[in-house]
């Protein structure tokens, strides 16, 4: 009975928890409620993934209205996997959040953080779960509006301007997507994704459908921070409170990449997107430019949080690169990297959250000598950093491996070489931090720095262990990503 209602509960539980957090008006109580709601959401998404893997796609009719007219929640392998990524990263980061948020956000605003957090979560889960394109826009705006709020809650005043800039860019991106949806509706008269995919074939050579394609590409590209539409991202990540940065790094752009896959593979279809419109010829150079430019900027960035922000732009480049190869292995690599990058980047931001908790700054120079003062925190940072570079036995290696195999499959050996060279750039910027932390001489600090409390270290290390576990046992991640890629490319056997 309750099992049949899981798809809607996935979204409704956090959506209701949000306003209740506001009414509770108490930081700790709100955190308790939000954390319980987050873990419930994680268990629901695990149950949904399990069900999808056994019985195939689930369709849920909202309010009992049948599909093309009513809103349908449709869950197949790829959204079940994205739901798991979002709710998993969210559950870990919110467990981390209590001490960190109390330290970084004005205590009178504590409950507002968790209100925004829950609305953000329900927005992201809604985007991933829904089978209706207009519903995508509504959930996109729910998550975006709450993310502007979450960034602006930091004490640093630069957070306000970062939030404002993100608001302007994010609204333009979402409105572009809205225009794309309008033009699609104009030609097909439907908003249901499966219905759209069936009807779009007969009108696919009209200019309206092609313009809609252009608007959707630009809008989703902005939301995903695909180079060169990434300018909002580094500041938004750098000036948000630490726990929020980790949350964004693990979830926000991932959902946009999911939308990219959904719109261009499921709705428009591979033939139209990549043979008629030749989207891959635009995405491939942009992905490579993003990887190299953003990695190079990251090397010269001294604020470690901003450095990780630029690194995120480069990592999004790898995902787009996988998509632009338009092969089962390439798309598998992209989906795998969604999961793997969420794990490594959230872990790194949580480690920086521990540093900020004790040191009060994350500028590279201020990390001097922390390798000995905070061994567990910096140990986590080192392992997360190695995963980012792609050292074997970490998840980063698995993503890069599949990406290189996909490139070699298409005889693009030069692409494989470029991926390897870009990993060296990642090694450079990660190493700079490690060097300062372990070999830099700590200046005269007035107080002795202690290790971060267990409440912060445990969530961080759970993610680090996940980084290593999924780097060794890849049966779950590669299996699901492979099945999702086959479903997207329509080659499911």
């Amino acid at each position: 009975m309750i099992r049949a209602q899981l798809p809607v509960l996935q979204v409704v539980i956090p959506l209701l928890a949000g306003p209740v957090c506001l009414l509770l008006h108490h930081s700790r109580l709100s955190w308790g409620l939000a954390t319980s709601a987050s873990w419930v959401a994680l268990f629901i998404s695990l149950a949904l993934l399990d069900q999808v893997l056994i019985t195939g796609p689930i369709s849920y009719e909202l309010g009992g209205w049948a599909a093309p007219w009513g809103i349908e929640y449709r869950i197949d392998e790829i959204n079940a996997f994205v739901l798991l990524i979002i709710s998993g990263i969210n559950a870990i980061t919110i467990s981390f959040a209590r001490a960190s948020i109390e330290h970084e956000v004005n205590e009178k605003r504590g409950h507002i953080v968790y209100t925004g957090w829950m609305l953000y979560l329900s927005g992201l889960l809604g985007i991933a779960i829904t089978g209706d394109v207009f519903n995508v826009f509504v959930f996109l705006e729910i998550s975006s509006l709450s993310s502007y709020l979450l960034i602006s809650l930091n004490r640093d005043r630069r957070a306000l301007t970062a939030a404002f800039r993100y608001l302007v860019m994010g609204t333009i991106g979402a409105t572009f997507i809205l225009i794309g949806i309008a033009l699609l509706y104009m030609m097909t008269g439907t908003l249901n994704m499966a219905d759209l995919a069936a009807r779009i074939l007969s009108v696919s050579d009209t200019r309206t459908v092609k313009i809609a394609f252009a608007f959707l590409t630009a809008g989703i590209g902005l939301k995903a921070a695909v180079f060169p539409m990434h300018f909002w991202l580094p500041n938004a990540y750098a000036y948000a409170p630490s726990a929020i940065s980790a949350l964004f790094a693990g979830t926000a752009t991932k959902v946009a990449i999911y939308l990219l896959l959904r719109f261009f593979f499921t709705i428009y279809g591979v033939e139209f997107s990549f043979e008629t419109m030749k989207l891959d010829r635009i995405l491939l150079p942009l992905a490579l430019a993003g990887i190299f430019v953003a990695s190079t900027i990251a090397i010269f960035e001294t604020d470690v949080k901003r450095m990780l922000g630029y690194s995120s732009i480069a990592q999004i480049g790898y995902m787009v690169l996988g998509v632009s190869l338009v092969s089962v292995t390439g798309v598998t690599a992209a989906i795998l990297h969604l999961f793997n990058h969420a794990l490594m980047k959230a872990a790194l931001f949580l480690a920086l959250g521990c540093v900020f908790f004790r040191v009060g700054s994350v500028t590279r120079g201020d990390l001097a000598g922390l390798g000995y003062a905070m061994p567990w925190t910096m140990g986590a940072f080192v392992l997360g950093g190695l995963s980012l570079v792609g050292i074997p036995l970490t998840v980063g290696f698995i993503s890069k491996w599949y990406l290189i195999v996909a490139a070699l499959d298409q005889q693009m050996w030069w692409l494989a070489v470029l991926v390897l060279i870009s990993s060296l750039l990642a090694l450079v910027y990660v190493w700079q931090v490690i060097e300062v932390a372990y070999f830099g001489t700590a200046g005269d600090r007035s107080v002795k720095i202690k290790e971060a409390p267990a409440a912060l270290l445990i969530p961080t290390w759970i993610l680090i262990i996940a980084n290593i576990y999924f780097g060794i046992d890849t049966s779950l991640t590669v299996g699901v990503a492979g099945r999702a890629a086959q479903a997207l490319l329509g080659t499911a056997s």
Partner: protein
Amino acid sequence: MQIFGLYNYWIVIILMMIGLYVVIASGNLIKKIVGLNIFQTSVFILYISIGKLQGGTAPILVEGVTSYSNPLPHVLILTAIVVGVATTALGLALAVRIYGAYDSIEEDEIQKQDATS
């Protein structure tokens, strides 16, 4: 003339360009929000135009009327209007907080203060 018959779409395009231009060219945060609003409004008109049928009436069952306008885009755009109001409210609230923190809502002035601090 086909081209003038579609004048509402021309208005959409003109408003959209004005809005985007204001967002990009203006350094004043309030003006940016105004530009964003104009941009969003153009999309509202686009949706409303899609639903309109020439000679069609409101979708209410009345005897003797056979052609109705499509109500769905109109309902959809109500949602988008609400989103637009929320975005404007949040943007203005941020502008107030920025004014409190920097004593200015001019982008170049704010950047100057960030660079020196």
